[in-house]
């Protein structure tokens, strides 16, 4: 027993000492969201050891950020979450002098991302995407006719069309700040509106189509789409592409399409940021600068199939990806993209209440 105690004391001390090395950078990123050689290349080039952890929801990250002293040096929150965490003082301003590769970034997209982070003071864009419609091409054609062109929110928000698709399964994200603006957009209202009347109109429409919705979930649809268990999902672009890739890998006759509706779609940004108490802020800057390298960003996009905001990397991205309007929208489609507005606490409560009403139907 004495020996066991001695052994465990030593081992615990040793476990604590591992983190006390000098040249380290602790990265906390979404799972499956980086090329498989990025970390290796960074370690080779700089000699800094990368400790790489992953999470699967903004909420998990937010809990760590708001508690403080998480130990992480670089994290990747989505725009609206970043904004709230900046408000709570969770991030330090970026040192622009340490980030020469900032010149590679697309000024238009950076300006759009500034909606979440004024003047891009705290963060730069990692990847971005849209919230559109993923659908089973064969199953939809079977029910709506070969000629029906999927290019509008009507596929989900027109009760008549939705009724025809209900038997094979329509799903929505369990995210009111994505679904309400989409419904408002379909109604011709400003999707960024925070007027209670507009939000209520959106909720009204969502309630109307509710009988045709199979479930509200933000992750289950990836596999279900790929398996052919559902046929239409409001989903995040990259997730739908995952489903697409998986379906073609299995080759069971399921073909998945992704479309940004003509009316418009939400544009979201995953942002690289440095926590205010990051233990290795210098290395964090080096890492972010490294990611913004044209070749590195191109490698990541080629691997994860998400759009980046790096103009210099465009020639290096596979033709197959740059020419896909679902990933890199056409100029015309770009016009109609919107970003999440700033919701104050009162609007937040209203949205939560409306969403509960929609989901429970009461």
């Amino acid at each position, binding site marked *: 027993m004495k020996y*066991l105690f001695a052994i465990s004391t030593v081992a615990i001390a040793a476990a*604590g000492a591992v*983190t006390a090395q000098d040249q380290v950078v602790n990265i906390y990123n979404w*799972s499956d969201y980086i090329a498989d050689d990025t970390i290796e290349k960074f370690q080779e080039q700089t000699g800094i050891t990368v400790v790489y*952890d*992953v999470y699967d929801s903004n909420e998990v990250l937010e809990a760590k950020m708001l508690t403080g002293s998480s*130990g992480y040096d670089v994290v990747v929150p989505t725009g609206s979450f970043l904004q709230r965490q900046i408000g709570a003082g969770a991030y330090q301003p970026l040192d622009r002098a340490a980030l020469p590769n900032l010149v590679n970034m697309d000024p238009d997209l950076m300006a759009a991302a500034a909606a979440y982070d004024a003047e891009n003071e705290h963060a730069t864009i990692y990847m971005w995407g849209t919230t559109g419609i993923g659908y089973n091409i064969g199953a939809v054609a079977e029910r709506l006719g070969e000629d029906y062109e999927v290019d509008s929110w009507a596929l989900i928000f027109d009760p008549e069309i939705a009724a025809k698709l209900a038997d094979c399964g329509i799903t929505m994200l369990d995210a009111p700040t994505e679904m309400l603006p989409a419904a408002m957009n379909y109604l011709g209202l400003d999707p960024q509106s925070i007027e209670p009347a507009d939000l209520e109109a959106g909720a009204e429409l969502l309630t109307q189509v509710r009988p045709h919705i199979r479930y509200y979930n933000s*992750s289950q649809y990836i596999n279900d789409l790929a*398996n052919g268990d559902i046929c239409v999902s409001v989903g995040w672009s990259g997730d739908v592409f995952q489903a697409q890739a998986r379906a073609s890998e299995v080759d069971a006759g399921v073909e998945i399409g992704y479309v940004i509706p003509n009316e418009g779609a939400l544009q979201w940004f995953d942002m690289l940021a440095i926590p205010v108490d990051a233990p290795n802020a210098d290395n964090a800057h080096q890492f972010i600068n490294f990611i913004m390298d044209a070749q590195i960003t191109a490698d990541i996009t080629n691997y994860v199939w998400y759009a980046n905001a790096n103009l210099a990397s465009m020639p290096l991205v596979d033709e197959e990806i740059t020419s896909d309007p679902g990933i890199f929208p056409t100029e015309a489609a770009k016009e109609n993209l919107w970003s999440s507005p700033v919701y104050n606490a009162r609007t937040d409560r209203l949205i939560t209440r409306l969403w509960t009403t929609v989901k429970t139907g009461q």
Partner: protein
Amino acid sequence: MKNRSIFLPVVTGLGFLFLYAPIASLIVFSFNESKLVTVWGGFSTKWYGELLRDPQILGAAWISLKIAFLSATLAIIIGTVAAFALSRFPKFRTKSLLNWMITAPLVMPDVIIGLSLLLMFVAMQGLIGWPAGRGMTTIIIAHATFGAAYAAVVIQSRLVDMDMSIEEVALDLGAKPMRVFFDITLPVIAPALVSGWLLAFTLSLDDLVIASFVSGPGSSTLPMVIFSKVRLGVSPDVNALATIIILIISVGIIAAAIQISRSGKKLGN
């Protein structure tokens, strides 16, 4: 009586089916060729090969095993001391309160344990600078905390059942109390120590909630990594890893069972 003879085996069979069907399907699907969990694409061992090339999952599994081993050991030490105090010392005034308190972590929701430990670690870091940041150390401490509660309950029940007279005989023959503890008491309660250790080990390996609260950079446990992958659907190499773990645990439990039954015979119980 004749009815019962059919009824019992059927119910037993259904009960075991209920317990083991999920595990069996996991093992079967770990040999599935297809990447989709629900589609059978033929027999293949490729996910075992894939698993060996996935440093993230292997690293997390190694971290989880280290944490489980150390925290279970720590839990057994604390649990034995606590159980010994609660079962051997004459009735003291707060004994029943302490008895009740040691079982509290058993019924406390993980979220509350995790959050309170996190707050304590953050406060301690501010006050005395230790533990500096969060990582394996904090997970080990957290797991030992609730593991000790389980271990104490298991060991205490064994201590209460134990025949005190053999300890008294040793004392009468002139053995020092420490000697009695290590030579008499410990061997007698050894089976409880083993099962308590295994229980704490399993609980630690299993825990997701508490570990997510108190983990830091570079200390993602296996459940955390698997959970973060679930969003894109569990990849089949996780099934392969789970199959290997089930195999190891089965061997461990069988070995422990043999050991316990042997030492039980030796002591004449």
